């Protein structure tokens, strides 16, 4: 091959990788999602979509840590801290959960720093084990504690928010129908995915790529791996805590066995892994796959066959890790790229073939 043709093909090839219709597809999906609550009137379907968005959001936040090359089994802890913070502040001081949410995020960030600072410097599984232990211990503590200082924690029975008594209304994150929650959850999801996308495009995104493929090499190039992993974790903690506050306002009821549970941590993990952790859109795709299955299984078999949905999570998790380690996102991207090269850009496809020869 002549020198000239080679230099010509290079920029085209790099454009193929940045797949061209992503903007259009994202816009179409978003419009469909905005129309859905006006078409599907059934609250049950709206509820399922809210759960898809919430878990897509949580898994995206969790996936940030994954993109930095670490694995958290304790995101339920940060979720629970957010849920408890906003609820306690609303019940004790009447502070609007919109603001309590931010306090919850700060609390979760502090907790994340305490867990992350000693463990994220280390390679291997220390962080995963520490988050797991933190989550389990926080749940034990919340179950056994009725009061912390002046605040009621409610032990294992949890906390009820009685809606529409006293301070109420949209200013206090209380809505009569599910539709506002739908749009808040959708907004949160779009926000989290945007954060993930923008971080990927920024300097820290390149650090992530370097850190997760080889932390030692990254360190030798002057990237402070521990520091950037900690920063990533703190962003993730704040986002997760906001998700927790949303959950507590959506259900008006939180208990340690719901919001601080290891099962919740693992659910976030499964959603993230199926879609493809270490990718931007993976967690979102995972939410769309696993949450409808989960909701149907729980409503159909939840009372008669306890633990069935968790068994299915476990099997799916093992199969994905063994056979599709990059997640379903990888298939989707490959499919789109295949369509792109086969049908939309035959000329570049020909170039591609030439180069391979």
């Amino acid at each position, binding site marked *: 091959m002549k020198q000239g043709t080679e230099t010509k093909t290079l920029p085209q090839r790099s454009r193929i990788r940045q797949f061209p219709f992503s903007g259009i597809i994202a816009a179409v999906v978003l419009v469909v999602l905005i129309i859905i609550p006006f078409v599907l009137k059934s609250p049950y379907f709206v509820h399922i979509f809210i759960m898809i968005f919430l878990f897509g959001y949580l898994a995206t936040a969790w996936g940030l840590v994954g993109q930095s090359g670490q*694995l958290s089994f304790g995101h339920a802890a940060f979720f629970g801290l957010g849920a408890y913070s906003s609820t306690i502040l609303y019940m004790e001081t009447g502070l609007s959960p919109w603001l309590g949410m931010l306090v919850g995020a700060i609390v979760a960030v502090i907790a994340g720093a305490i867990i992350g600072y000693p463990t994220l*410097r280390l390679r291997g*599984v220390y962080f995963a084990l*520490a988050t797991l232990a933190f989550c389990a211990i926080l749940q034990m503590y919340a*179950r056994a504690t009725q009061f912390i200082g002046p605040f009621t924690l409610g032990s294992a029975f949890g906390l009820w928010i009685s809606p529409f008594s006293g301070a109420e209304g949209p200013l206090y994150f209380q809505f009569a129908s599910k539709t506002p929650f739908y749009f808040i959850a959708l907004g949160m999801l779009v926000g989290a995915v945007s954060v993930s996308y923008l971080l990927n495009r920024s300097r820290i995104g390149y650090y992530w790529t370097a850190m997760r493929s080889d932390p030692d090499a990254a360190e030798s190039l002057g990237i402070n791996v521990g520091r950037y992993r900690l920063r990533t974790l703190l962003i993730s903690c704040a986002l997760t805590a906001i998700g927790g506050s949303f959950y507590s306002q959506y259900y008006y009821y939180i208990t340690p066995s719901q919001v601080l549970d290891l099962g919740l941590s693992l659910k976030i*993990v499964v959603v993230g892994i199926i879609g493809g952790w270490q990718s931007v859109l993976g967690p979102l795709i995972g939410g769309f796959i696993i949450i409808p299955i989960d909701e149907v299984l729980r409503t159909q078999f939840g009372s008669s066959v*306890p633990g069935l949905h968790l068994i299915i999570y476990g099997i*799916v998790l*093992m199969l994905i890790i063994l056979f599709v380690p990059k997640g379903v996102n990888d298939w989707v991207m490959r499919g789109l790229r295949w369509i792109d090269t086969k049908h939309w850009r035959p000329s570049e496809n020909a170039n591609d073939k030439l180069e391979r020869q």
Partner: protein
Amino acid sequence: MAEQVTAALVAGILLGCLYAVVAMGLSLIFGIIRVINFAHGSMFMLFLYLGFFLWHLFGIDPYLSIIIIVPVAFAFGYGVQYVLVRPMFLREKAYVLEPLGVLLLLAGLELVITNGVLLGFGGASRGIVGSSISGVIHWGFIIVSRPRLIVALVGIGLSFGLHWLMNRTELGNRIRAVGQNREASAICGINVHRIYAITFGLGCAVSAFGGCAMLPFYTLVPGVGMGLAIKAFIIVVLGGLGSVRGALLGGIIIGVVEAVGGQFVPGTMAVIISLVIFLIVILAKPKGLMGLIEV
């Protein structure tokens, strides 16, 4: 007060040996294969259930059931390593194992086992009544239950037995060789994947051996595995990942903190103290108290 603390100290050491039994197998597996067996607690719980049903259905004494449960545990661990974890090793490129992938794989196994037991046997708590050894021993003001004392002795015995196996036998030499350098061992003609599977089986068998000794007084629910596993994770990091005797030391520290701390503060606070100790140790000495693995 001094008497109470001394009694709590003894109780803590006994409790710590019980935790150490679970942690030892975990630490052995990590030390050689560099894989954290996330499903260790649930596998342990499964062996405890097996022991319970051997007693319940056939009337086999828990201490006698060791001769059945330990080989079963070995075979189960061998199978898990060979069927589930080995493909991850075969897939990896440039001999760098993605440890988080294996961790997730075993987390999936944990979910399947725990909830499979819940599905099969229900969530009711079970326990063995009337095994061959029972009762208490009085040493002055200290009262020790005999089955718990046996668990402690078993734990200490297992740690020395493993030390002997690893340092004084041909198999132990091979296992340690593979743990130190996989490629060099393979060049020397050691079947690495077989050694890995044996190690995994051995780790399960060690924990199951101790589990049989726990059966006479331990209350079984499907969730018991995860609770013990979380303690075991803390203990192995505290004692040093990969060190079997470190696991014994770490177990005793955590047991004593829980029991003695429980005299002064509520039980849950004592558990939080153990987490704080864990974080301080990681901060100050990431290798753990007797760690072998560089981090």
